[in-house]
């Protein structure tokens, strides 16, 4: 499973990368929305984790760009990861097309739970247990 985390803060990226490493997922990182969008172009990710406040393009605009794509990547699950506490946060994220919101500090269990549930929702059939 490959996940992309877009966040300008290197410490945040390291924390989430290590958390995902515990459950066997690999993570690519981008330090800006622009760099993230470029990575999405060339890679196949299962989930995008997106910070909100970043220099340059912000996370919501990047999410809108993903949703505006004409290929299958327009459907990529996007989870916003933010320390923003404004009360209309969820509303704004949903409006931009995000599938979930995680608050910083990120609880490892919530991170994994959210990704797992999203994957279950978007995954196709064909179940094989190894």
């Amino acid at each position, binding site marked *: 499973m490959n996940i992309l985390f877009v966040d300008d803060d290197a*410490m945040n990226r390291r924390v989430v990368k290590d958390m995902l490493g515990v459950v*066997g*997922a690999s993570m690519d990182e981008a330090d800006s929305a622009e760099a993230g969008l470029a990575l999405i172009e060339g890679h196949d990710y299962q989930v995008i984790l997106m910070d909100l406040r970043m220099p340059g393009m912000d996370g919501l605009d990047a999410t809108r760009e993903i949703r505006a794509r004409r290929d299958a990547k327009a459907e990529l699950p996007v989870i916003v990861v933010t*320390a923003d506490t404004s009360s209309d946060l969820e509303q704004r994220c949903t409006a931009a097309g995000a599938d979930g919101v995680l608050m910083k500090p*990120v609880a490892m269990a919530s991170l994994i739970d959210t990704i797992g549930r999203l994957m279950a929702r978007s995954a196709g059939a064909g179940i*094989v*247990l190894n």
Partner: protein
Amino acid sequence: MRATILCLALLIGAVPSGAALAAHGQTVAVQSPAMKAFAAKVDATKQAMMGDPAIARKSAEDLLRMADAMKRDGSVSARDAAISSATARWLLAEAYIGLNDAPRAKSLVAEALTSIQSGAPGSKLNGDLLRSRATLSEMGGDVQGALKDYLSAHRIFRAIGEARSRAIALQDIGNLYLEAADFDRVQSYYSQSLEAYSEDPWLNLATYNNRGQAYREQGNFAKAEAEYGLALKAARQLESQLLEARILTNLAETQYELGKLDQALATLARAESLVAQGGEAAGWHPFILGVRAMVEARRGDTAKAGQLMSAAFAGQDLAKTEMPFRELHEAATGIYEKLGERDLALAHLKAFQRLDGEALRLTASVSAQLMSAQFDFANQNLKISELKQGQLQRDITIERQRGEFRTRLFIGLGTALLIIFAMLAFGYVSIRRSRNQVRATNVELSASNVALEKALKARTDFLATTSHEIRTPLNGVLGMAQVLLADRRLTKDTRERVELLRGAGETMKTLVDDILDVAKMEAGDMPVESEEVDLSRLIADCVGLWREAAASKSLALECVLDNVPARVMTDGGRLRQILSNLLSNAVKFTPQGSVALTVTGTTDGVAFVVRDTGIGIDEAEHARIFEAFTQANNSTTREFSGTGLGLAISQRLAKALGGDIAVTSTPGEGSCFSLTLPLQAVGEGYAEIAEASHTLAHAAVLLIERNIANHALMRMLLAPETRTVDIAFSAENALEQMKSAHFDHILIEGASTGGIDDIRAIIAAANTADSKTTLLAAPTDQLGKADMFAAGADQVILKPVGAADLIAGLKALYGKREEQGEDRQPMRIAS
């Protein structure tokens, strides 16, 4: 103008301080002859203070010499020496204030404050000294400094139960806001003053008069009229003709504003009959004439108005009139204009502009200074609820103070002249005001309101930003702690240390969340949602969260549901927050016994009652505990950690959800918090505490699976066959989840744990919670087949296994338990 205002502040201060000082003198006099002589001199000085300040200064200088001598010859204790030194310096300072010599008074007050800090910090004298310093700050135009000292003085008076001094300090603060034209605050502080102490007609007079004035400034003339009526009663009680005449004039002007012109004239006639008796009241006559002129002008008799106005200004130099005449100048301008007396009209207009400019400058400066001091968390302490608590103390002290009051009244009558001079200070403010000024004031007021709202918003924004900034580094601390804890190689010691780190991080996170919640609520930014909520699950989760904490203190934690709808519409997250907070408090404040949550469905909704056998809360504290940053008493804060924000947040949330929280409690026996919410049931059925389920379809399942790539698949596979599916990524995480919620069935993916010991621990926990267990694994080097079957799971399923076989296997575990008997063998399923 500054000087006249200060007279009020000073005088109201000087009378009570003297009386209090007498009481103070008596207590120390018992101790030594030197102190006895000193106390007598203090009384003499205090008496002199009411008359000529120059004589008072001489007397106070003698006092200072006595104090210094006592200190030198060591005839008194160090504490008494410090107190007498502070007392002498304070009285001398007050004398200098009377002589308008602020610099000398200032240094004396500073010295006295240093002495009292070592001798009797927090004493009434300390409070009185802070008030003197505030007066001096006010004289020097330092309104912020004055406000700060008045607030500190108020805190001292409240702490030692000096209700009357406290009321005076509240009036001091009210006066500051009066100067700043912040009339809402004027109302608030004067009302608080009255609540703190209402036995003194002098204070009551000031309260009613100034409240009346504030109402007038706000354009609420009907209320102003009522206040002046009360002020009039107080003035009569004091048997002062001048005061009565002045209040009558204020009343008449209010009646004039209300258009009750005949009544206004009748009121003025009463005032005139009082001043006609001569005495000091005679000096008030011009103002009565002036207001009469205004009334006559309104009635259309301009000629008569002109005559009255000329009489009012008879003998006055129009270029040098004082502030009290400001309003009359404005009225005179209009009257003389109508009469065609251009020159006179112009002279009055100039005089008005001169005084008006002065007044506006003052108001603007005071208002600006107070505005910057408005980040006024201290005002929290002055809240009405605390005053109610003060009222209890008041009842007790009233008897004692009645005696004191009689003495004061005697002194008061002897010094009527000074007091009257002081009354002029607020009287002048009361007599002014015309529509123009009301309009100007309104503009100023709305500007202050806008500024205040901005300040409040700035505070919320500041807290939001701070919260954001704290969350980011906290993400690093908590995140890495969690990653470390997921590392199987951690030794026990290291694990405990990292747990501590994580615990501290979690506490900090709660703190940041709470503070932000309060800020949002204060800014009215706390939307609640409405969603379908599974009450059984929510209640079980909330209780589960505190199960371990209760068990570690050997507390019984019970939960009873009665007639509770299974599903309701509400904001589930907020309801969780409230219930968790109530349970958390109950567990925290109960050293032994039990905590019980009883949930009852009623016709109006649902009642959640949390009852404990803990330390309890005094009745007097019941209202306070719902305020922000409050624990029942300060020592509680030290004994039990916490911000004291939880209940404040919970109650506001309860109200936001349409309900409320009430408390009953007996100290030492326990507390009972009742949350009532108007919850509407969705569909049929009643909530119940989950019991062991009899079919897989009713089971809450917890899967332990490290590899996230499998999570989605397992969820999809299990979801249609079970009630709920939760996934833990490690053995630790599973044990944690099992603590806070009940699962009917635990599915352990063997390779996702740290080995056989982890598996045994999970199975042990599952057996305690009466959960079924299935171990799902492929035999490996670390986890051999023998180990797997010996671990004690109800069932072992060997991988690889097809989806249909897995589900069939899980289902097979239901309804079989009894048949398996004591030493059952685990079921084997393998493909």
